[in-house]
């Protein structure tokens, strides 16, 4: 059995030079991993890359006289960033997947089994299989400038299965390995900085980037001569190892409730690494890799990764960017919390004057004060220099009248969610600004077409729907109203890109994408409670999805009042599918902000909330609630696609990944609905063909 070639593999070549280091007799074989592209296309390992490294090691071993040592480094700024995942769809069966794992192990193992000492000079970004190459070497140096150090496998739906789960815990201890392999990966794929990695014990020496390779070779010569002793702390293989595994399991259960298989497999492998020899451990990795490569969760994970990496950066259906107009001044109508957040974001990213207006001087002062205080906070944490803080503060000003917008190119309103109020605000703005000034609205559910209908230039109005907190959540739904023209849309996308948001083009349909799906989903859960289902049962019903938070915790985050308002809007538009919960209305009227309370130390239904709720007497099981919720989502997504809210199911998934934080292993949502059969049961067909975000048919 051999691994099939990856047709599009950008092969990382292992280039060998034999170098003489002053003060050391003999040669060091210096292997450079280089895929022939610059740092924007990092080196990865597919079958071709593994074969090249294998051949390089053959050549090195055949060298006479024998080399003193073998060292591996990378092209500028990049060591290597792991397996070539673009080839995964090529793997059609488990045997092929198994073989790819074994090939990687066999080749990398040559570095740990070599007859001479081996070194990894980690000069730059190192992830996954790249880090595993380094871990197979006997010694490691690390550049203080290395940008990204991580095992992202569990984030995608794999395990670090080319030795990572065995070598890392045996190098730095199980607890730290769990931090790197599980916690960091599942915490939005957090990367280590070089200094952190060094302090964790991943590298034996840390050198500045300016002369990293020279210093590394000099250091290696010192080690080879015996002048430099490499001391590593003893690893605790006793209770500490078990404690670490327990901690890892608790972390996973809290985060995933068993929803994704890969991190649990990684945990098992780390547990195994305590006593297993490397051969046994890597054989177990092979099996785990083969199982996971042939899992729908991984295929959905790779699909999600691709959406986030590519589709998010090249939105579909957007007018040519050459149509975009320059934006040299921004106006923000309103001075509430949202307006303050928007002002800060625009000032930071566009670096143009941002003027807030509010009729109420008190509110205006508060809005400006909020933005300035946030800038001070960033400066206090040294995230901004004092000069930059001064610059940003000077950019954000306030005005009690809209005259200050006269020379603005882009005005966004963030006033109360009321159509009439917004219509009036836009008309007032239009009276002041130029004919081409873009008017954006941050509405979360109102019709933008209606909002623009009374303007002289409705073609300049566009929806700009951010997610709270604005500085953190990466999604921006850009809404094309019926009359929005291409120049306006192109300008909106150009601004969105400068704001570093992932922009998705959506049609002017009620609540757009994320809020419409979440509201439908929440509606199903809430109505189950209304009908008599226990709060906890309903709330925990969707745990098997591994969502970032449970429905009622989400309700608390969004705020019952906002959720209620959106559900009313959607009810008005689609009365047959979106109900308005009387219980939710009572919650809002009573100014309750949460279902649960944690005052006692554990989660409990707030007794006041329980008292407010008037429940029926037909409770559902958790499974029934979950089925209802998923069926509701499937129906809604199909209708949204039929209405043309977005171009494709991929956009729905992208929105759910970035706007709701729904997990990679669900693929957003449609891959999960497809693979669980919900799509076909509810709508008669799948959202995506088999193989796109799932195993091939």
């Amino acid at each position, binding site marked *: 059995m051999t691994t099939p070639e990856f047709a599009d593999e950008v092969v990382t070549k292992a*280039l060998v030079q034999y*170098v003489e280091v002053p003060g050391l007799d003999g040669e060091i074989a210096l292997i450079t991993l*280089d895929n022939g592209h610059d740092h924007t296309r990092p080196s990865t390992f597919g079958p071709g890359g593994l074969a090249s490294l294998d051949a390089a090691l053959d050549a090195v071993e055949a060298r006479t006289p024998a080399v003193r040592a073998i060292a591996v480094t990378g092209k500028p700024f990049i060591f290597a960033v792991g397996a070539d995942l673009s080839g995964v769809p090529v793997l059609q069966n488990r045997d092929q997947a198994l073989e790819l794992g074994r090939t990687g192990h066999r080749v990398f193992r040559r570095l740990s089994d070599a007859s001479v000492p081996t070194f990894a000079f980690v000069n730059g970004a190192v992830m996954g299989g790249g880090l595993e190459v380094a871990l197979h070497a006997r010694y490691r140096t690390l550049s203080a400038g290395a940008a990204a150090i991580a095992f992202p496998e569990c984030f995608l739906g794999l395990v670090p299965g080319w030795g990572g789960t065995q070598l890392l815990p045996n190098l730095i201890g199980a607890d730290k390995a769990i931090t790197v392999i599980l916690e960091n990966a599942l915490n939005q794929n957090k990367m280590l900085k070089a200094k952190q990695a060094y302090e964790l014990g991943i590298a034996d020496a840390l050198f500045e980037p*300016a002369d990293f*390779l*020279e210093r590394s070779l000099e250091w290696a010569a010192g080690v080879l001569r015996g002048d430099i002793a490499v001391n590593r702390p003893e690893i605790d293989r006793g209770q500490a190892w078990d404690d670490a595994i327990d901690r890892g399991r608790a972390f996973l259960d809290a985060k995933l409730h068993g929803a994704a298989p890969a991190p649990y497999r990684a945990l098992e492998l780390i547990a195994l690494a305590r006593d297993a020899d490397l051969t046994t451990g890597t054989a177990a990795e092979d099996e785990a890799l083969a199982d996971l490569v042939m899992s729908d969760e991984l295929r959905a994970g790779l699909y999600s990764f691709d959406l986030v990496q590519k589709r998010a950066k090249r939105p579909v259906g957007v007018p040519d960017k050459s149509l975009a107009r320059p934006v040299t001044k921004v106006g923000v109508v309103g001075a509430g919390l949202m307006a303050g957040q928007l002002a800060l974001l625009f000032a930071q990213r566009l670096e143009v004057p941002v003027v807030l207006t509010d009729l109420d001087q008190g509110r205006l002062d508060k809005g400006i004060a909020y933005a300035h205080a946030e800038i001070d906070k960033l400066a206090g944490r040294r995230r901004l220099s004092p000069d930059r803080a001064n610059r940003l503060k000077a950019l954000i000003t306030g005005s009690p009248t809209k005259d200050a917008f006269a020379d603005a190119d882009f005005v966004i309103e963030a006033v109360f969610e009321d159509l009439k109020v917004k219509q009036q605000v836009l008309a007032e703005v239009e009276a002041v600004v130029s004919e081409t000034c873009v008017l954006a609205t941050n509405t979360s559910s109102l019709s933008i077409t209606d909002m623009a209908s009374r303007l002289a230039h409705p073609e300049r109005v566009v929806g700009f729907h951010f997610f709270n907190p604005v500085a953190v959540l990466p999604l921006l739904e850009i809404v094309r109203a019926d009359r929005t023209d291409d120049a306006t849309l192109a300008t909106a996308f150009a601004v969105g890109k400068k704001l570093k948001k992932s922009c998705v083009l959506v049609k002017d349909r009620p609540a757009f994408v994320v809020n419409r799906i979440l509201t439908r989903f929440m509606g199903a859960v809430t109505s189950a409670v209304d009908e008599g289902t226990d709060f906890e049962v309903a709330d925990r019903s969707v745990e098997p999805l591994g969502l970032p938070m449970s429905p009622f915790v989400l309700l608390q985050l969004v705020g019952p009042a906002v959720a209620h308002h959106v559900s009313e809007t959607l009810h008005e538009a689609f009365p047959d599918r979106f109900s308005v919960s009387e219980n939710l209305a009572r919650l809002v009227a009573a100014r309750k902000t949460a279902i649960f309370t944690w005052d006692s130390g554990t989660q409990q239904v707030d007794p006041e909330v329980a008292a407010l709720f008037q429940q029926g007497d037909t409770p559902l099981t958790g499974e029934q609630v979950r089925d209802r919720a998923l069926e509701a989502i499937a129906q809604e997504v199909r209708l949204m696609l039929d209405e043309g809210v977005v171009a494709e199911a991929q956009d729905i998934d992208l929105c759910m990944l970035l706007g709701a934080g729904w997990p990679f292993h669900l693929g957003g949502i449609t891959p999960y609905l497809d693979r669980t059969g919900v799509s076909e049961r509810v709508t008669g067909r799948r959202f995506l063909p088999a193989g796109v975000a799932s195993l091939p048919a």
Partner: protein
Amino acid sequence: MAASTRDVVFVDGVRTPFGKAGPKGMYAGTRADDLVVRVIRELIRRHPELPPERIDEVALAATTQIGDQGLTLGRVAGLLAGLPKSVPGYSIDRMCAGAMTAVTSVAGGIAMGALDVAIAGGVEHMGRHPMGEGVDPNPRIISEKIVDPSALVMGQTAENIHDRYPHLTKERCDLFALGSQQKYAKALADGKIGQDLVPMATRSAEKGWGLASADEPPRPETTIEGLRGLKTPFRPQGRVTAGNAAGLNDGATGCIMAAEDTARELGLPVAMRMVGYSFAGVEPEVMGIGPVPATEKALKRAGLTIDDIGLFELNEAFAVQVLALLDHYGIDDDDPRVNPWGGAIAIGHPLASSGVRLMTQLAHHFAERPEVRYGITSMCIGIGQGGTVIWENPHYTGSDAK
């Protein structure tokens, strides 16, 4: 307040190994600024007793100040090397004598009390920046016959010296060149050369990273027969060949210069004490004789004569121009005081960097030869100049020692 005059000392110098310019050279894929940054970092590492914030200036030379040799290299290289942002820097161009001029410039600043410690050096990556890249000679140079057109081609200026001094024959030049190769080979074998070198990572997209730890240009296999048979690219039946001239090279040098009182304060070693220096102009079409008037002038100003000079580090741009100086002073072609470890004909001549190589080597000779009190470093300069720096040996043990 009158400006004070302080003694200026050469503390230490290093260089990268020199490479052959061109696509096959070892630095073909390595940036010029990276070469000189490496040199600065090595100087700092070799001298932990020097707090980097005490460096008052970084003066770096390059002849072709564009691309990776541009952008006020002295400033940018300091930043790239990790020197404190408070340390200033500037760039210098006096063609081949760039690094020498960097040294004399900071020496002037030190002498008058404007600086205490400085880094001076140079870099030339003639592979990335061939001589004459981007030049735009003023048409008046031709129309008013300000400079003979041959003055812009260094090999032709060397042929012109042969015309002027017919007794400096091709055979003498070839023998001198052979001696340069042989002296270098012996110095290398004796472990002399390596002490100045800082190994340099070499980048190649095709071959991967390597490490330059030795000079690339030397040809220890050189024979007199081989030299006699080489082509004369500048003239038919000419005398200047690739064998009796320095090649086209890549490399960087650097040194620490200090006021002697500051050196003592910080515990910096004193390798050489600067006695004086001069630059002088000559007809551009015989630029190679520039060292003669420069040396005359420097000696006169220092109150010394050529007989006081016990060691010579002369840049071998062309054998004939070295012989012109030796001939002027009646020094034998193979005088052992001259270029004891060989010169640029063997080692290479990355234009603006070479001056500090001469000084670094003279410093080593001084340490080995306490009986010698004075030495000179001298070099010819394109467009008709010469430069000479006179140094005193701090290790001198003669009866008239300070």
